[in-house]
Every structure is written in C-alpha cells, then in structure tokens.
C-alpha cells in the first residue's frame, strides 16, 4: 500500500461512521477534510458511565463473577476470571493446581472462539472484498465452514468446563461447583486435535491475503501480562515494551492512568507515552520467545517479527495465538488425564480485604479490583477493560494514518479506517443484544 504524501485535490472528505445504539459503549469515526487539509480526525467513544461497577457493590463475594460475566457476551469467561482472581487475592484464597489447569483450559477456549470469530467473521470479509460473513459464506464457503468449526470447538471447551457456552456457571471463588469428567476431557482432546489442521487451513488463507493489509506502522508502547518462560493469558505481572522489569498487578492503577478525554465519555489510558496498545500484538511483542512450536511456526510463516508495530497485524497475531492455545490445551488435558480428576469442592470463608485480578481477554489485558468488608460484601469496584486502554492508541493511529490515505476516495478512506478500528478487535456495545426489526 502506498504511503506517499497526500496529493492536494479540490475535494471534500466527510466521514461519519456512527455506531448507533441506544446506550453505552459505541464508537464513531469522524473525519472531515477539505482540499487535502484535515480539519477533523477523531475516534469518538461516547460510552455511558460504568454502571457495572455500581451493580456489584453490596453483593456477596460469591456472586460477583456471575454478575460480571454478563458484562460481555464474548469475554464472559475472562471477566469471571478477573473477578475470581481479585476475590481470591483479597481473601487469601488458594486454589489447587487442578483448578488452575481447568481454568486455564476454559480461558484458552474463549481465546480460540473469540479469535476465530474475529479473524473469520470480521477480518476475512475485508480481505476478500465482502461486506460481511454472510456473503462470504457464499463466495468462500469452505473457509467459513473451517472458521465455524474452530469457533465451535472453542465454545465446546467453555461448555464442558464452565458449564455453559457463555456466562459460565461452574466457576467459583476457590474452584468449581462441578468438575468435568475424564470422558469430557477426552472428547475435548479429540476435538482440539482435529482443530489443528483447520487452523493450518485458516492460517494458509490468511497468509495468502495478509498482503492486502495496509503496511502502516507507528511505534507505540505495548502492554500485556508477562510470566517467563510462558506465553501467559491467565497469570503473570504487567509487562511493557518500554520497560525491562515487570510491574506488579497490584499497581495496575499506576499503569492505566485513566483520564477523561473530551472526545469520549469512556476513560482513556496512557503509561510511558501518550498511548499504549493491548491485545494479541502486545502479547506477541512481549512473549513471542515462549510460543509453542506450531504457533512459532505460524508466526514464522507470516513473517511476524517481535517488535512489529503495524496495528493491522494484530489479526495475524490472533491466528498465531489460536495455535498457541490449542497446543497448550492439549498439554493441559494430557496432564489432567494422567493425574486423574480429583473431586474437590472449594470451602472458603470471607474476610475483609482489597484484591486485584489481571487476565488477558482476547482483546487485551483486563483488570478487576474489589474491596470487601468482613462479611465478604463488596464495598468498592474498579474495572478497566482492554478496549478503553486502546482508545488513545487508536486516536494516535488515526492521526498518523489518515494523512497517508487522505488523497484516496472517501469510501476507501472510510473503509481503511474501519479496518483499522476492527484490527483492535474492540469491545463495543457488548452488554446489549436486542433485536430492532421492521415487519415486511
């Protein structure tokens, strides 16, 4: 893609992509340019106040994970784990190795299904010039069926261990209310083994098409969990590409540095620079040395180098992570089957305290912080979602990217900007779902 300086033409660009919902999280792309001069270039996020934090105040520690799992239909497992880890941190609750492994397996299931959905249903149509996945299913039926099959297996993992495809019901502080059987784990093992050739098919398709991604680059700070020598999603400290030493999770508020921005009612974040980025590319840039063999091979075949700063390649990093979570899942199941499932029930007693949980959602690092009184009733909550951490970075990408493309047709500029926002896999308007229909 050309990145030449814009040609000055007598024309007006007026882009106003409004994500119309009646409330809470949504994002608008607004660009106005006249005769090649950019007058307005904004990523606007008019998100409603964080009512979920208010909703958990006054609730028992035993109910928090169930409530917060409803914040998002895609990241419900991650929100549950953010809460559980914060609760366990606040009350000094230790979990067994079996619980940690089963949680990790569930979490990998969510990464797999979310990444497959994003790459297959939102990115692939862009690369294949289709308006959405529905017409893509007509033009590239085999590819869509492959993506659907991968997505199904991710969901199956969450269902077999979390008890439900979404909004899990078996996750509790200290452990599980019900454990999967060894037959469940064997079924998952076979399904995950069958997923590897499907991922190879998806990776080959994306590799063929990745040349269609813009070659735009902008250096920024990348932030993700680090826990050498692993590629972590569930535990670790906070790493930054601008730092050599990690930051304790308990200090996350000094990392996110939330602030109000006039373009947005959602809070924005910054750390060592004016913005930072979270998500698959951040995880890759910080942890690529610890990828499993198939994931590392996929990264190599994509030519994905550690230190890459093209935000569009976040989607390629998501494909790499699909291999990573499947490989790790198979290893975990192998260990669990070797040792056998021990029937254990969490027995926890509440106590007063403050705790923080940090986990990687598919779209980036997520922080939950709660305070509890001596009865285990939540008195304060602070949740910082990955998409809010990316808003300032998206804005700075706009400011660098738009001057490079402003000489193009308005529709092309709009499409490229939508692709840029999509590449971050943002969590927008995720707490509502309702139909809005007209009878025909």
């Amino acid at each position, binding site marked *: 893609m050309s990145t030449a300086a814009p040609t000055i033409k007598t024309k007006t660009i007026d882009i106003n*992509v*409004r*994500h*119309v919902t*009646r*409330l809470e*999280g949504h*994002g608008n*792309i607004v660009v106005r340019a006249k005769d090649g001069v950019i007058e307005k270039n904004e990523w606007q996020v008019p998100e409603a106040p964080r*009512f*979920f934090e*208010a*909703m958990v105040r006054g609730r028992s520690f035993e109910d928090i994970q169930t*409530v917060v799992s*409803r*914040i*998002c*239909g*895609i990241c*419900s497992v991650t929100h549950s784990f953010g809460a559980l880890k914060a609760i366990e941190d606040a009350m000094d609750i230790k979990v067994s190795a079996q619980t940690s492994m089963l949680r990790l397996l569930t979490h990998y299931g969510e990464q797999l299904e*979310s990444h497959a*959905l*994003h790459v297959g*249903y*939102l990115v692939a*149509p862009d690369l294949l010039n289709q308006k*959405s*996945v*529905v017409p893509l*299913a*007509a033009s590239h039926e085999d590819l*869509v*069926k492959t993506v*659907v099959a991968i*997505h*199904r297996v991710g*969901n199956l993992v969450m269902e077999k261990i979390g008890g*439900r*495809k*979404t*909004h899990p019901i078996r996750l509790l502080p200290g452990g599980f209310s019900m454990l999967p059987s060894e037959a469940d784990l064997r079924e998952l093992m076979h399904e995950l083994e069958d997923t590897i050739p499907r991922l190879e098919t998806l990776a080959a398709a994306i590799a063929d098409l990745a040349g269609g991604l813009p070659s735009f680059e902008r250096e920024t700070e990348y932030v993700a969990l680090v826990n050498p020598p692993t590629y972590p999603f569930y535990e670790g400290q906070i790493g930054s590409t601008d730092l050599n030493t990690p930051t304790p999770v308990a200090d996350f508020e000094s990392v996110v540095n939330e602030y109000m921005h006039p373009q947005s009612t959602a809070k924005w974040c910054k750390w060592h620079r004016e913005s930072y980025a979270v998500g698959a590319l951040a995880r890759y840039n910080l942890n690529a040395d610890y990828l499993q063999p198939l994931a590392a091979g996929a990264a190599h075949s994509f030519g994905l180098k550690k230190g890459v700063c093209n935000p569009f390649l976040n989607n390629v990093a998501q494909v790499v992570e699909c291999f990573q979570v499947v490989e790790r899942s198979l290893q975990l199941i192998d260990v669990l089957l070797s040792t056998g499932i021990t029937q254990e029930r969490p027995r926890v007693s509440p106590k007063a305290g403050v705790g923080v949980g940090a986990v990687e959602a598919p779209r980036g690092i997520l922080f939950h912080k709660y305070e509890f009184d001596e009865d285990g009733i939540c008195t304060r909550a602070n949740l910082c979602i990955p998409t809010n951490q990316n808003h300032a970075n998206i804005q700075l990408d706009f400011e660098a990217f738009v001057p490079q493309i402003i000489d193009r047709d308005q529709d092309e500029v709009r499409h490229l900007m*939508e692709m840029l*926002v*999509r590449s971050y*896999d*943002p*969590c*927008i*308007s*995720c*707490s*509502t*779902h*309702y*139909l*809005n*229909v*007209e*009878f*025909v």
Partner: protein
Amino acid sequence: MKPTAIIGMGNPLMSDEGIGIHVIARLQQTILADRTDILDLGTSGMRALHELEGRDVVVFVDCALMGTEPGTIRRFTPEDVETKKIQPRLSLHEGDLLNTIALAKRLGTAPERIVIFGIEPKTIDPGETLSPALAARLDQYVATVREEVAL
C-alpha cells in the same frame, strides 16, 4: 443435542433487555423436557449458530424493538422481518441474531422451523428488574412459548 431448542437471548443486567433470559429461567424451573434443550445464550448472538445445526425446531425469545406497546409479545419468523440495526461491523459485539440465522441458512445448517418471540421493552437501562409492564406478563410469555413447542 435434542431436536428442539428454546433459546433465550439478552442481558438481565439491562432491565427489559434481559427478558429472554427471564423467560428461559422460568421455563427451566417449570418443565422437564426430554426432547427440548432450554438454553440461556446471553448476549453472544454468534454462539447461536452452533445451536441451530442439527435441530428440527429452534425457538428464540428476545427483547425486540418492534414499534409496539411495551410488553407486547409477537411471534415471527426470520423471513417476516428486516433488521433496522445499523452495523458498521467495528466490533464482534454488534451481534444481530438475524445475521446469525442468515449465516446458518447460507451454510445449510439452519433447521426448517425457526420462530422468534420478540418482546417489546419499556426500558433497556442498567438494572436487574423488569419493568412492571413486562414483569406482570411473564407467565403469559412462558405459556406462549410452551404452546409453540407443545410442552
């Protein structure tokens, strides 16, 4: 997988937006269904794709803006309606059930009979209780859905 599924969609933390989940919770309490899965799929519309395949009948219960009086329940099929949602596809979280059904049809995995019960909300603001207009009719909604699948 059972041949029939009743699937509730929505978010019970957003007042009437969660009406589908309230109906499902009531159905799960009151019936023993040998041939019917009764599922809460929350706000993840695309997961419904995997619940359509291999079934004979799928009945959805969902909050729906239909331009009717709050509390109104209306039965329709995907062919009876067009979506009015404007979706720039910026996010996976913009899910639309009708889009999921369209994809299943395109892939040949949709059951022959898909029925949607739309329930018009009074409010979809944050809150865990239904507005009175809907709460008062919860039994009626449950009975209507049961009648559809002859439970």
